[in-house]
Each structure stands twice: as C-alpha cells, then as structure tokens.
C-alpha cells in the first residue's frame, strides 16, 4: 500500500520561503494572494490492511515525518 503525505507549516507559523515566492510571483505580474510551501512524501508500506496502514501512517507522521509543534500533516492511502 502506498501513502501520499503532505506536510505543511501550521497556519499560525510564518513561512518566509512561501512569502519570498509570493513576492516573486507578484513581481512577475501574476494575480497571487499568498503562497505556502510544504513537503510531499510518498511512503510504500508493507501492509495490505487499510485500517492498519492508516494507523501506522498516522504514527509515522506524528513521530517523524511532521513536527506537530509547527506542522500539520495529511495523507492519502492508495492501492
């Protein structure tokens, strides 16, 4: 089973990288309101049971892939 994980900085946390890209896009003349930068990860799990895979992924995200102090995470299972 495959998991697609998205990790983003919490809304309350300033994202200086996103702000820099936002300014650049505005300079280029695009109608952009804001940009936030996050991470995308793909994890292939050796687990066929969807409920179990979900449990494992949640734990993996909390423990390592995201830092709950500053980040939110979201994942989708496939296959």
């Amino acid at each position, binding site marked *: 089973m495959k998991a697609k994980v998205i990790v983003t*900085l919490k809304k*309350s*946390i*300033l994202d*200086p*990288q996103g702000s*820099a890209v936002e300014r650049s896009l505005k300079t280029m003349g695009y109608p952009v309101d804001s940009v936030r930068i996050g991470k995308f990860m793909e994890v292939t799990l050796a687990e066929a049971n969807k409920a179990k895979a979900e449990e494992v992924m949640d734990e993996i995200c909390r423990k*390592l*892939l995201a*830092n709950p*102090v*500053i980040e939110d995470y979201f994942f989708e299972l496939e296959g």
Partner: protein
Amino acid sequence: MKIGIVRFPGSNCDIDCLEAWRVMGEEPKLIWHQETSVQGFDLIVLPGGFSYGDYLRTGAIARFSPIMNDVIRFAKEGGLVWGICNGFQILTECGLLPGALLRNAGLHFICSPQYLRVENNKLAFTNCYEQGQVIQIPISHGEGNYTIDDDGLKALQDNGQIVFRYVTPEGEASAEGNPNGSRDNIAGIVNKKGNVLGMMPHPERVVEEITGGVDGKGMFLSILKAWEGRV
C-alpha cells in the same frame, strides 16, 4: 569531569567542543551516535553541525539515533545536557526542550558575531556570568528562528527558562537586536529542572583570544563550578 560529546554523521562542531574543553583542562570523549549508553558521564554535549544533512527537518533524524534514547534517560534523571546549535534543534525535536527552530526570518544562513544578554545566571551553565551581562558569542545557522506558542512562551518567561536573548550592542532585546526572527529574541532556553540547556550561539568558538574573544568561557567555567560544588 567526565564529558561526552555525541558525534552524529554530519556533526561539524564536535572537535571545536572537544578543543574548548581541552583549553579548560578537561579531556572529553567523543561518543559515536550508534552507541547506546552514556553511563558514567557527568555532562553530555550535543554539538553543532548538520546531523544527517538536515534531511526532513534539522535534528529530526538524529533524534532517533541509538544514543539518543539513553541521552533522554540521562536528562530525565537530572544529568547535564548541553545542546549547541544543531544540538538545540535535536533537543526540541526529541521533546526535552519546548518549541521548535524554523528557517531564519530573512532566509539567509547567518554566520556572524552576536550580542546576547544573560537572562538567568542561577544555572549550572551560567553561574559565572552576571545577571543581565551582555556577551558576544557567534551564531552560525540557517534555522535558528525559535518559535513557541503563547502558553509555552509564558511558561518559559514565568519559570526563568529563557537563558539568553539576542540583543543590540547596548543590550536591548529589540527587533534590531534579533538576527533571525526568534520569538521574544530567544537565543537559548533551559528545561524546568535546569539541567538541559539548548542554545543557537556557539560559545565553544570563543574561549581563546586568538579566535576573537573569550565570552564563551563563562559557560565552561560555570559547568565546572557547578559540578565541583556537587562532588
């Protein structure tokens, strides 16, 4: 004093720490991150650098190194743990210290001398400084922007856990004196018990005049004094 300096793949201030302790007359041991015990040590130093290439987040992978389980046990039993720069990032990742370190507000890696104000001199790490003393210790980081939520910040302030603040040469903890956007100009904090300290600046780089100053020496002297007082 039995001092252990943990070396992770990508640590690059481990030898600086070793040399600084030698200047103080101590002979520390390097501990490889694959080891599993810090038994017998009086102080564990987590040095600066780029452990695991800063992959994922700074300190995130080092935090799960085999040695860290025992460092956490050691810290919880009251052992002295001193995290500098990447060491501070590892300490927040493993939860021994609250908050987190983000990309510098200006996005640049900053390597420069920096003024700090000593905000708590009653600690094993700072007892040789005056309260409010302004010292100059270099910073060298891309992710030193300390962040913490409102409740966490209030707890740090109320418990005297803020040890160093970034200040102007005049000692003002203003936006002007803040190099990286850290909340409340925080440069270093300690846990509630006072035995685990994390800081972004590098005191090990300023213990001899030849490297530009000796303002970092006070931390080494403080630790020795605290340790001698205990034995």
